[in-house]
């Protein structure tokens, strides 16, 4: 489990996990929401966070790109590493961190004041990139990766709000991809979408993991089973704080979990 933590030889770097979480906890106004989470996010794999409502999946996910910084009362403890960089240790500015760890939210949230094109390149523009050729190239490549290029290439100037819900979510994926992040966080990305759109996004994730490491929160266990390689199961403890019950390959979590509580959840006995 811990074999990858020491960084040293070249092989260790090659197999180094994209992210490492060590005793991570999150508290709001002194009240613990997630505690003591330790696992590795493997490169070019899909890692899913599963568990019933209130188990802290989203809270944990949002600690990875420091989105809790917006909440004054939030305190993140423990250590989170992106490669060798300590995310909360001041190793890199938060803005740079967030351009290396992209995020897709629960509900599609394209910028309503911008066109499809402007939405896709917004992250690049926010980070100071103005070169038109580079923006055009990035937009096309991101839209192709998000399986949206063919349906929008003729109307890049149209408002993002003219797209359907599923297309808007793929636009948000394209927008996140355009910044070329190493890790993509997805917070229940299909929970507001219909089954067909959901399926397209799931297919997309399988293709995307060639170029980006994915961490996805989902309360749909079938989805976790279909798309993820590794699985973290969280559960709310007595004091309502989320805890990591088990982390293993998806295969193991769904067929042969160590913890009886994991088995209960997988088999639908609660949650």
């Amino acid at each position: 489990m811990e074999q990858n933590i020491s960084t040293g030889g070249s092989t260790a770097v090659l197999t180094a996990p994209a992210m490492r979480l060590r005793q991570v906890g999150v508290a709001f106004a002194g009240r613990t929401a997630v505690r003591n989470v330790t696992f590795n996010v493997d490169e070019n794999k899909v890692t899913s966070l599963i568990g019933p409502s209130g188990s802290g999946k989203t809270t944990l996910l949002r600690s990875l790109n420091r989105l809790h910084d917006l909440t004054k009362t939030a305190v993140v403890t423990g250590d989170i590493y992106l490669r060798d960089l300590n995310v909360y240790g001041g190793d890199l500015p938060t803005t740079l961190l967030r351009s290396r760890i992209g995020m897709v939210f629960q509900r599609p949230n394209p910028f309503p004041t911008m066109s499809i094109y402007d939405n896709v390149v917004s992250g690049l523009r926010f980070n100071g990139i103005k070169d038109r050729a580079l923006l055009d190239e990035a937009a096309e490549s991101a839209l192709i990766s998000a399986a949206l290029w063919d349906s929008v290439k003729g109307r890049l100037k149209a408002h993002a709000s003219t797209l359907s819900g599923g297309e808007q979510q793929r636009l948000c994926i394209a927008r996140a991809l355009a910044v070329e992040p190493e890790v993509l966080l997805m917070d229940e990305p299909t929970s507001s979408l219909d089954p067909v759109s959901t399926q397209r996004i799931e297919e997309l994730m399988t293709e995307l993991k060639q170029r980006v490491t994915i961490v996805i929160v989902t309360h749909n266990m079938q989805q976790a089973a279909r798309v993820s390689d590794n699985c973290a199961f969280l559960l709310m403890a007595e004091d309502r704080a989320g805890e990591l019950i088990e982390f293993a390959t998806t295969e193991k979590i769904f067929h042969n979990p160590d913890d009886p509580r994991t088995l209960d959840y997988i088999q639908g006995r609660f949650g």
Partner: protein
Amino acid sequence: MVERRRTVHDIASRKLRGRKIRSSIYIGFIVSAIVVALIPLGFIVVALLVKGAHVISATFLTATPVQPTLFDQDNIGGIGNAIVGSLVVDGIAALMAVPMGVVIGLYLSERSTRTATILRSVSEIMTGLPSILFGVFSYIYIVTWMRGYSAFAASVALALLMTPVISKAAETALRDVPLSLKEAGLALGARQSTVTLKVILPYAFPGVFTGVLLALARAVGETAPLLFVIGASIIYDWNPAHPSTAMPLMIFNYAGSFYESQQAAAWGVALTLVVIVFALNLAARFVAARMRREQY
């Protein structure tokens, strides 16, 4: 269960008649309240049209005023200089008030510090102050400092009047920006200031713009703050450092005139002013509605 369902349906159908009667009584109240509110407005508009419309002509809108004499009572010239004066005074006031109001609104919408609370109270008190006090302020600080009346002094008075109106509208509009959009911006690696400029402000623009136009509509019609800071002028003068005049002042001066021709002219200026204010209001609504439609 079936029993309870029948009871519920029975009671509901028995009460329906009473509900219908009450509903029509309330609607009656609302309609009569609207009518009562509209009657004085209707009278004003009719009076303005009847007494003012015949005065307005191309000359009236473009010429400078001429002092009538007993032998040539109908020659009063026009109000072109007052229109220019209003443009200069209100334009400069807007140039000062818009950035100030938007920045204050931004601060109030983003922060909940003690400073913000105090600033909000001060701003609310300012909207309730008699407008002549802004003239007094401008007289004490601007007129005495510039050693003379000027369009600029009038602009300062009006800017103070407009700022709290704009900041209130801006705060409301900026508060309505969904958190999910700010998060989307930040999650892409944008700095807070970039998110504010590129995401929050564009989204809130229709609301902010409506507030600006409404504040402007109010300022255009103000007389009191200008009375003792703007001085007087009967020529075209675009220089804000010079004394000037404005349309509401023209009404004030002409309405008390000895000459009937000037009294009629007062109605003409009033009608012109109302048309301008009405157009501003209409523009505000149109822009807001149009931009909202584009966003969704």
